[in-house]
């Protein structure tokens, strides 16, 4: 096996909301350019983990964490510029969020916040991101209409375009298909297959089969603990080597 340094390295990570523990000393890493699937029942700490990685967890009152999370070998807790860290990581939330701006401004929002203002640069970037998110053809004639007025599936692709607009090296998707139709879901999965060539993807999903289709490795997170993390072929095989994993993947968990 090759030994390139991990893109993300999590060590002894624990977290709490107030006194309520979420993660219990979990350790794992994400390799550069892999797709890591994360599966697990609701409330098991998947969203919280993603929020710890891009340091938006600290924006919730009462949230605490210990242990280390490194991105490109740098402890996220001590990065000089947290906004730069967040731009390095694209984040797609479960429910599509069109900002109350035009479609164009939705995608141009992050680059503008980062200081990009040349019209031609922005134009090119907006087009590129909307193409990557497979939305360009549908909206290219109405870039100045409101992003909030798009359909749910379109808004989710707009959200992905926005997450790509600050040219992240890592893309985190949190149950992106929870509120959209199966056809759009498949289109976004095709998008991800393209994107994986260039960036590292963490795919939290409520559809275990989605992880099977897309993820190189899959992590089963349950109750704040990693039950199993292995190549997806293993996790989704008839004999993953862990009874809980088998039960969850085969829908007899309870």
């Amino acid at each position, binding site marked *: 096996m090759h030994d390139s340094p991990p893109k993300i390295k999590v060590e002894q990570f624990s977290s709490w909301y107030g006194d309520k523990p979420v993660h219990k000393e979990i350790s794992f890493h994400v390799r550069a350019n892999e797709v890591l699937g994360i599966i697990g029942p609701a409330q098991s700490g998947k969203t919280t983990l993603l929020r710890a990685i891009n340091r938006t967890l600290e924006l919730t009152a009462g949230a605490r964490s210990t242990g280390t999370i490194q991105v490109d070998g740098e402890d996220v807790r001590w990065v000089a510029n947290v*906004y730069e860290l967040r731009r390095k990581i694209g*984040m797609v939330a479960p429910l599509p969020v069109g900002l109350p701006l035009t479609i164009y401004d939705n995608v141009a929002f992050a680059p503008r*916040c980062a200081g990009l203002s040349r019209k031609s640069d922005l134009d090119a970037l907006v087009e590129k991101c909307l193409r990557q998110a497979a939305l360009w053809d549908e909206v290219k004639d109405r870039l100045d209409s409101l992003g*909030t007025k798009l359909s749910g599936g379109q808004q989710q692709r707009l959200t992905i375009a926005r997450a790509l607009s600050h040219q992240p090296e890592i893309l985190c998707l949190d149950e992106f298909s929870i509120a959209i139709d199966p056809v759009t879901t498949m289109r976004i999965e095709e998008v991800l297959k393209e994107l994986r060539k260039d960036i590292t993807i963490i795919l939290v999903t409520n559809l275990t089969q989605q992880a099977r289709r897309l993820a190189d490795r899959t992590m089963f997170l349950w109750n704040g603990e990693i039950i199993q993390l292995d190549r997806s072929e293993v996790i989704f095989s008839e004999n993953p080597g862990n009874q809980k994993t088998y039960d969850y993947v085969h829908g007899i968990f309870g």
Partner: protein
Amino acid sequence: MNSTPSSPATSPAPFVSNPRVRRKLRQERIAQAVFATMVVLMLLPLLGILVYLVVRGAPLISWEFLTTNPSKGMTAGGIWSALLGTVWLVVVSLAFSAPIGVLAAVYLNEYAKDNWFTRVVNLAVVNLAGVPSIVHALFGLGAFVLFFGMGRSILAASLTLAVMTMPVVITATREALGAVPMSFREACWNVGATRWQTIRRIVLPNAVSGILTGVILEISRKAGETVPIMFTGAVFFRAIPEGDLFAYRLTDQCMALSMHLYTVTTQVTGAPAALPFAVATVLILAIILINATSIAIRAWLRSHRKW
């Protein structure tokens, strides 16, 4: 249709009129009638006041009435110096309370952590709204007029009004900010926007209608107050150059509509009976106009809502 009322234990078929259903419908009609009556009871005095004022005061009101100073011991002439005084008090006071109130509300809503300090501040704001105006008047007298040495002046009176009406704008602004979905902020933070970028580009633009409403409500409260300005800067009579909007200076004392109304009602003998009604009509119409503007702005912004 199944209509076998032989066994009352089974649930009755829908739409079959039985005593229980009829009673429910009757109750529903009675409830609606009671609520509607209350609306009428609420509106009657309001309409009564307005109609009575306008009918009695209208004959006196004219362009000249608005633009000439009171004369002959306030038994004749118009209300120019009082009208302009109210405008000055409102504008100067707004120049202090609107920015401070809005920015403080932004801090409380967007930056402040939920700790004992913010809770004390919130409590203070709520209680400030409930303090009687006479207390504000005494505070203004002690603080602005005497301690800061502003004397009885437009500045001191405006600051007193500003302190008094600050809770209105803070509360309205906080409500407006709170109505902007949290998911918008999170989406911005996720793409590396700072709090300020998020506030400036997303939160504030979408809270403008609520903030404006708060500011306009504040205006009508300021215009109507009497006691606080009486102690701190308003006078019974003062003649100023007519037609000059800058006839007052910040250090001047001024007349004000609300106080003028009090004066002509209780202190002046020999004034025409219509005079107090005319003053009151002008004051009320001005406030209605301001509030109508607020409603219009809100309706316009609502129809241009972005989500």
